[in-house]
């Protein structure tokens, strides 16, 4: 993977493309994420019902693929559905999967220019 690709996946997207966390149809928690980094942070503190709602609707994999354009992470998140995780187990598994990918992408960026 090139640093350009990693940079693209890690970018901050405009407000209208952000991920908005709901707990059920039409019930918005007030929590959103505009980048992969923010997404990891939100996974740790959003109502776990929201994680269950979006994972099993396929909303996470869709946003990661279509907005962040990270097909690899999208596939990994989709695979989590098979295990029927709920509650904090789901939070931990999803958090680990996305954090690992974030770390890998960040390491692709190369040295930070000052």
């Amino acid at each position, binding site marked *: 993977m090139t640093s350009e690709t990693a940079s693209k996946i890690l970018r901050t997207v405009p*407000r*209208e493309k*952000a991920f*908005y966390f*709901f707990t059920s*149809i*039409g*019930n*918005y*928690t*007030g929590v*959103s994420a505009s980048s992969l980094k923010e997404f990891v942070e939100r996974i740790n503190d959003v109502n776990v019902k929201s994680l269950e709602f979006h994972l099993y609707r396929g909303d996470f994999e869709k946003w990661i693929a279509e907005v962040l354009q990270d097909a690899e992470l999208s596939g990994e998140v989709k695979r989590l559905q098979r295990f029927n995780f709920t509650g904090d187990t789901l939070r931990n598994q999803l958090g680990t999967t996305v954090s690992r990918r974030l770390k890998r992408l960040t390491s692709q960026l190369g040295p930070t220019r000052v």
Partner: protein
Amino acid sequence: MEGARGTLKLKNNALSLDVTDVEILRALQEDSRQTYMAIGKRLGIAHSTVYERIKKMEKQEVIKRYTAVIDAEKIGARNITALMSVYTDPKETEKVAERLAKSPEVLELYACLSEELLIMAKVFAASQDSLHAFIANSVAPLPGVLRIRTSIVTKKFKETQFLISNDSKGVHL
């Protein structure tokens, strides 16, 4: 013709209606397709009086429009009606409401004062998925929206418009 019973007058920027005007409006609210003759007969006045007063109230936009009330269930529509409460930053409430008012999915829209200022809207969608897509893509991203609570209507027990009445205290619900 308008003399003793009075006519449409401006009072504190509101149009003042007399008893006959109000009775005509009530008759129209019950059935706006009835003839001037039928209304006149019911109220004991000439059909020409009914005609003139209706035309005047249309001109003054007291009568805004005539419409058909459709029973969506009878035409097989499987649509969803939901009541949505949008909690906003008070500084942004007006702008959020203005944006929502432009959405065809929003049938009715109100700013309300509860424990905190919020916007309430009656929303119409083809399915639960399209309702969610509308709220996720067009409501949640609006600047100033703090959180949203939505209830899907499962059964309608009553839906009507207010009927006006008139007594010594004036025109009221």
